[in-house]
């Protein structure tokens, strides 16, 4: 049994309206980078923020008022996806609905603030620590929609969104749930920018230019993305479980294996994962190696940047929008993580 995509929602640097953002991606627009200074060294980074106005309506929510941006993104994206799915949460429905939350770096703003207080003041606020826990956004989301059953938070590299979709698919297959709200989010802080820059995965203002040689690094971004999985819906989803890799020289082969095992023919469209790093070349190699034809490819990270916890889900949502727009039936979503696993998903029109 394949899972169906019943609804989708996102909050991105380009907005939160599904079709309007998709149109801007198709038009080749790029979100505006915002500078973010490291107050310790003065070093300037750039990232793509989610405009605060997209989530500020949630600020009066008592459960969210002390939480970090990542929880706002999670709730905003999930509510939009539920609305698109036409699901009104009754207690009976909530009892059969699971939350699966994907995260890569977690509540990094509060984590940095908490540790900063500890280092500089020797004591830290008890209000900060609970929000540093990886599953805090999932908890806020479950409370918001009244889910008292299964709630899972998955952590990993930027392939974690597909791992979360797979887990959601598994919860439906094992009949633990009738619906799974799969959400992935990322928030950005200067310490995260420092880390990705030092890791040579993020570029400065020149980051995010795809397929350049040598790679200039990704443009880090904030985002929230949500996919409601159910047994009915306009799109069928088949997510690969993933292929682990440990050395970069094995990454392309791992992705090729995941793509081959997901679908090697009959693909009308690719929603690629190129982000301006070593991933661009590895993805290109893997697709050439694994696919029999060369379908057109769209790379949403050129417009939306790299939001590691959310980006795979953003690709899947982009796939549904692309399929809805054109006379195309099957879209491949290849995903290569930074340092964990490669994966892929096949999104098909259910009709």
């Amino acid at each position, binding site marked *: 049994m394949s899972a169906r995509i019943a609804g989708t929602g996102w909050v991105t640097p380009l907005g939160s309206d599904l079709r309007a953002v998709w149109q801007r991606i198709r038009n080749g627009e790029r979100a505006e980078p915002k500078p973010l200074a*490291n107050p310790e060294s003065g070093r300037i980074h750039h990232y793509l923020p989610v405009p605060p106005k997209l989530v500020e309506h949630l600020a009066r929510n008592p459960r969210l008022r002390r939480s970090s941006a990542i929880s706002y993104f999670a709730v905003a994206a999930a509510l939009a996806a539920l609305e698109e799915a036409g699901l009104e949460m009754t207690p009976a429905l909530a009892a059969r609905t699971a939350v699966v939350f994907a995260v890569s770096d977690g509540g990094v703003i509060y984590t940095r603030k908490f*540790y900063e207080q500890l280092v*500089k003041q020797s004591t830290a606020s008890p209000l900060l620590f609970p929000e540093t826990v990886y599953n805090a956004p999932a*908890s806020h989301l479950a409370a918001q929609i009244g889910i008292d059953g299964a709630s899972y938070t998955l952590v*990993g590299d930027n392939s974690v969104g597909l*791992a979360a979709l797979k887990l959601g698919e598994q919860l439906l297959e094992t009949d633990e749930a009738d619906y799974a709200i799969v959400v992935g989010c990322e928030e950005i802080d200067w310490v995260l920018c420092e880390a990705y820059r030092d*890791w040579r995965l993020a570029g400065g203002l020149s980051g995010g230019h795809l397929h350049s040689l040598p790679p200039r690094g990704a443009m880090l971004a904030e985002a929230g993305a949500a996919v409601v999985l159910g047994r009915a819906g306009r799109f069928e989803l088949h997510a690969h479980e993933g292929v682990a890799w440990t050395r970069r020289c094995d990454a392309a082969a791992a992705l090729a294996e995941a793509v081959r095992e997901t679908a090697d023919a009959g693909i009308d469209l690719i929603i690629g994962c190129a982000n301006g790093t070593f991933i661009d070349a590895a993805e290109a190699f893997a697709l050439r190696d694994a696919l029999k034809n060369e379908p057109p490819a769209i790379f949403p990270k050129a417009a939306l940047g790299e939001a590691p916890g959310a980006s795979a889900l953003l690709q899947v949502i982009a796939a549904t929008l692309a399929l809805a727009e054109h006379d195309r039936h099957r879209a491949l979503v290849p995903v290569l993580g930074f340092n964990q696993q490669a994966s892929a998903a096949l999104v098909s029109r259910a009709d």
Partner: protein
Amino acid sequence: MKAPSFARNCPRGKWNCRLHRATRWRMKSAPDFSSALSQPPAPQSKRRVAVTAMGVVSPLGCGAEETLAALRAGRDCVTAVTDFDVSRFRSKTAGRLDEGKLEARAAKLPRSARLHPASRMMIAATCEALAGDPGFRPELMIIGTTSGGMSNGQAFFRAQVEHRRPRERAVWLANYNPQKPVLDAQVAGGFSAPMQIIANACASGTNAIGHAFALVRAGKHERVLCGGYDAVSELVFAGFDSLQASTPDRIRPFDRNRTGLVLGEGAAIFTLEAWESAVKRGAPILGEVTGYGISTDNHHLTQPHPSGIGPRQAMERALASARRRPEEVDYINAHGTATAFNDATEGAAIAALFGSRTPVSSTKSMMGHALGAAGAIETAFSFLALRGQFLPPNINHQETDPAWPLDIVANEAREARVRCVVSNSFGFGGTNASVVLEKSDEH
């Protein structure tokens, strides 16, 4: 973007919201927890799920044999923390692993000196599990953790604050992510498998085992490697201190005089396989996982609902999944963190569901709270109890809190006939998980 009506109505007038009204009703009216409304149906397929091997490293010992001896002896393995400054914290102690014992396993890996302690724990536990069943080929790896290589993140941040750019920062970054210890364990174990890393706070380890069980039971996988790991770090130590959840005293779960938790660390790994498949290839069988229950308590991010509804739902769902009645359970390995809130709600839930007839202990009394690894380590302790036919003790016990009539296995291990065990884990975010573990007669 227009939010759905339940969300729009929620923020200020939450009891006007249909959803919250329903939640309140369920909480306030001494509910029938077994109602079909809150009870997910049992999985369609009912395959038996064998545990063919396990590996465990904890303050109680490296390996199952050392651990078994320490459990029987009721050894207090909480020691002073010396690797970071604890002078400003209430608690000065934690259950720590003997790093030296882990070195040997990790030494096989290239650049082993650079590995984070969490990687060394994962490597030791994984290699022990795979050595126990050399024919086991994992199709999937599901691991629970809360903080990964957090101490590397701390070091990176400190270097920023101190305006240093040491060469080690590349090593810190490479070994910071929670997936790194899992990948290191795969390399050391000589296999490669897709992975799901569950970060459901302190329930993570039990969730990992429970989800692996659900997949094997439903026929989605034949063999899954699962478990959990966590290493003590300054940030987490300070975090629990800031919440005043940690204690300067000894950890005394379910005690009238309990004052909080101490942290612990470790890893435990299990090889789960469909029963038929394990029998067919003549694999050793340690026991079975027969049930799993998960629930989410939406009361508060860090505090459980006082009624104990979350823990009770998790235990009820696990028993329903195992098709067991409460009176068939011989021992409960409780979450038992010795904090005021956890023990009050868990004690109430156990008393309401099991009465005083089922022996209960919290093995955290011996080693502290290993967070994301706790559920996996305590599952390992439970299998050792099933194997050794004894009940691990709840040490440091003075006087059982009179709020609940529990049969606490106080201070000394108890010889007993143990066939069926429930192991509980509850965490921040209201995540609750329970597993049912059983001894199998056939092997």
